[in-house]
């Protein structure tokens, strides 16, 4: 887009990489064999997943009563995990869509994995609305399909129904957006494949992409339109999830700030998860040249920003709970009553993990440190789980009537299903990392000449990088519109 880049911008591709190097580096994990560590991680995840599936079958076979829910606390770990997973999924769309609209070049190294994370996280989230039903086999009744009951339809007034539409649309659009971006990269893998079976598979999934100028033009337009659609989608999906609570009349749930505050929290937790995953991935797949310290720092800055927004929302919730003058607001998840009540530990875990710890990222040394970023990102993931747990369980534990006050204790099945979804997530992510180009090859090539370290250095020293056009005022401007055709 722009043909000039300010010299003070740091390089986004380290080393003196060429187009061929990019292809080689990104294709290597797909073309090579998995090592022992990968298998170990895979089997552990698989075991967790199978254990989780066992717990799910046990729940469905025996009844929801095997969970720790009661007649007063009808939602706890199930919906907590649901919102947590949906929230994690949001960073993927944010990185691929919102950062595209804001023309952030650094997103290119991380968007593929972030979108994969979105899709796998939405899979996990999608399990909970079904398995927390008392009669999941009647789950299809949530769909407005003509039927033999005199065409008995759903009531469109329930945010739980909006959830069905929101999550399914979100998954479909994210999947299409992700797959469209994958076409040129799958084509690259196809063209390099030596084994006939591999060639056949990648030929199938790349839909005959041949990279003509017209295709690229359409490809960019589609990406932009999808980014423009995915941005309101990502905001509306978590908004609708927040409506599950905010449309109610429970003190602590009924709060108008929930829609934007949930979205900010989703980006906050989603970026933390991307940070966790990429922190490991850049090491084990040798992508250090592409996922650089700069990327980690930028992600940390987004975390500070969204964490700050969440902090302002917490403060607002706390303030308005008091400002309402309603005595019922005294026991909401962010109130003096919660701070000192039986769930005080959950209240303080929330503040320590989400508000206090991320403030360390204001320090540049910590923000640019891989290990610190990794640790803080895990703390945030825990904190954001507590946020949802606090909102749901603390509020339900002390409702309007004191005779309904109750304390929630999870059972092993609650915990087992959650562990199962974490296992399932990693099974999918590990398989993805071995079979998909984890960094968009084609997109990286579009920024190599403007933001590659080698090119930047040469420009600084005044060595022309071919091909160049010398203009009347002796300014050197690169021609990079033909770049995409160069790749093999």
């Amino acid at each position, binding site marked *: 887009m722009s043909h000039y880049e300010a010299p003070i911008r740091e390089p986004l591709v380290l080393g003196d990489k060429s187009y061929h190097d990019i292809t080689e580096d990104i294709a290597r994990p797909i073309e090579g064999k998995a090592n022992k560590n990968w298998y170990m991680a895979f089997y552990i995840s698989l075991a967790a997943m199978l254990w989780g599936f066992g717990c799910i079958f046990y729940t469905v076979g025996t009844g929801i009563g095997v969970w720790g829910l009661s007649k007063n606390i009808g939602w706890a770990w199930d919906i907590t995990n649901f919102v947590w997973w949906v929230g994690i999924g949001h960073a993927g769309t944010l990185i691929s869509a919102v950062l595209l609209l804001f023309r952030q070049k650094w997103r290119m190294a991380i968007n593929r994995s972030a979108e994969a994370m979105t899709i796998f996280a939405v899979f996990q989230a999608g399990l909970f609305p079904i398995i927390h039903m008392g009669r999941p086999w009647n789950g299809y009744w949530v769909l407005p399909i003509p039927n033999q009951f005199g065409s008995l339809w759903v009531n469109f007034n329930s945010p739980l129904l909006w959830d069905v539409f929101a999550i399914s649309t979100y998954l479909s659009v994210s999947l299409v957006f992700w797959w469209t971006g994958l076409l040129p990269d799958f084509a690259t893998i196809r063209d390099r494949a030596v084994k006939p079976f591999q060639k056949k598979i990648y030929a199938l999934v790349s839909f005959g992409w041949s990279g003509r100028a017209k295709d690229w033009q359409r490809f960019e337009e589609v990406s932009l339109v999808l980014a423009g659609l995915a941005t309101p989608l990502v905001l509306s999906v978590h908004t609708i999830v927040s409506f599950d609570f905010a*449309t109610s009349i429970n003190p602590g749930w009924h*709060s108008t700030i929930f*829609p934007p505050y949930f979205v900010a929290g989703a980006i906050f937790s989603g970026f933390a998860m991307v940070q966790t995953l990429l922190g490991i991935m850049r090491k084990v797949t040798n992508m250090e040249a592409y996922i650089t310290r700069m990327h980690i720092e930028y992600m940390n800055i987004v975390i500070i920003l969204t964490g700050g927004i969440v902090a302002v929302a917490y403060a607002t919730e706390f303030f*308005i709970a008091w400002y309402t003058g309603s005595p019922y607001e005294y026991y909401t998840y962010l109130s003096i009553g919660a701070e000192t009540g039986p769930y005080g530990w959950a209240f303080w875990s929330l503040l320590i993990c989400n508000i206090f710890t991320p403030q360390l990222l204001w320090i540049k040394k910590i923000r640019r440190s891989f290990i610190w970023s990794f640790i803080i990102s895990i703390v945030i993931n825990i904190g954001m789980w507590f946020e949802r747990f606090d909102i749901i369980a603390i509020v339900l534990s002390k409702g309007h009537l004191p005779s309904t006050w109750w304390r929630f204790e999870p059972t092993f099945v609650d915990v087992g299903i959650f562990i199962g979804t974490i296992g399932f997530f990693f099974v999918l992510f590990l398989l993805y990392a071995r079979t998909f180009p984890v960094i968009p090859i084609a997109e990286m090539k579009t920024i190599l000449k403007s933001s590659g370290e080698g090119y930047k250095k040469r420009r600084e020293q005044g060595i022309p990088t071919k091909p160049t056009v010398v203009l009347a005022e002796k*300014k050197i401007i690169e021609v990079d519109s033909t770049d995409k055709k160069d790749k093999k």
Partner: protein
Amino acid sequence: MYQFSSKLKIASLILIVVGALGIGYGFLSAPSSLEEAKEMMAHQASHGDSHDTANHDNKDNHEQKHANKEVHGHDANSTDKHAEHVYHQLKNRPWSAFYVALFFFLGISLLVLAFYAAQRVAQSGWSVVLFRVMEAITANLVPTSIIMVLVILSASVFHWNHMFSWMAEGTFDPTSDNYDAIVDGKSWWINIPGWTIRGIVYLLLWNAYRWFIRKNSIAEDTANDGYKTYKKNYNASVIFLVVFMLTETMMSWDWIMGLDPHWFSTLFGWYVLASLLVSALTVIAFVTIYLRSKGALPGVNDSHIHDLAKFMFGFSVFWTYLWFAQFMLIWYANIPEETTYFAARFNEYKLPFLSMLVMNFVFPILLLINSDFKSIPWFVIIGGLVILGGHYIDIYVMVMPGTVGGQGAFGLPELGGLLFFLGIFIYTVFSAFEKASPVPKGNPFLEESEHFHYYNIEHRGEGSEDHH
């Protein structure tokens, strides 16, 4: 260099004078005693049929309000009480008319400042050529802040008006007729000294950053110190954004939500922010288009206009999102203490309330979704005028029901307020723009900004200096 033409200067002075006359008329035509108010009411009642129905609606609403008061331990639904109520509302009208325009212009200047700080913090490459335009607009923060301080003092210290109903005598006194237990329960936050001091502190903080960044932005031009000044400005902007986020939220509670002291909404601060942000972006686009047409902005091309229009479009949708979130959640749960807010607006301000949605959402989304349209100045101007009108109405609808109730209208006092502040805006902004070089030479991203070209935008009518 740009020269603030004497024609424009005179025009702005005329606007100030005409506006002041309109404001003065508003104060003179407000009733000065209860008797006068009763006369005015009688006069109103004798008007034609259409007015009759309007008055009928009003009365219904007043009765409702009085019924509410009864619950709080107040007496009487007598006509005297009603007349006194209307008297206060009529007396508030010139104040509210002035306050709406003041808040609108103050908020726009503040949000331009915040957007500018965000551009610095984001190290954005496209907007550097617009920095001086944004800085010039923030110059309007100074006079509007001074007037705001006067308004704050006249409301709280001198008690010249009843805009903030909780400032009435006896609100916090249990022995008084006027005692309001709900407000008294919030006296930790809602109290006159706290409110006054907070308001002045917000204004001081914002103006301090604006003063600092303007001075150091000009210093950046000639600094040549290895981007030391640039980095200092970056850090100051980061700190300002944190301060802004906190003060903006509290400001909206104090200055707008406090007009309806029984009502509350957690989203409110961000809703006000969105409304002012769209208006601020529109004003940046307007001033940019005007100055470019005068040849005062050499680096600005159609792509910059396109980006500004994209922001106008995007944040119009964002405003609608927040409006809907707040409205729908209150409508859905229908908890009486929250619903009164929208009931008052929907009953007495139906036309502005609904037309604002069309102007702030439907119109911009239809007009500005086309990529080609976004770089055509007159299209952006038309879209922007509707957006600005819509957001003025938005603030009007936020303020009026709480201060003048059924006595709201758009007449000379309101128009006078708008013209008065428009005149001040033109005068301060263009004289500030004149004082510095229109190109921020020292900014490391200047060249990126001058070369900025959004990929599918044709730059019309530009010379050979533009390469792509």
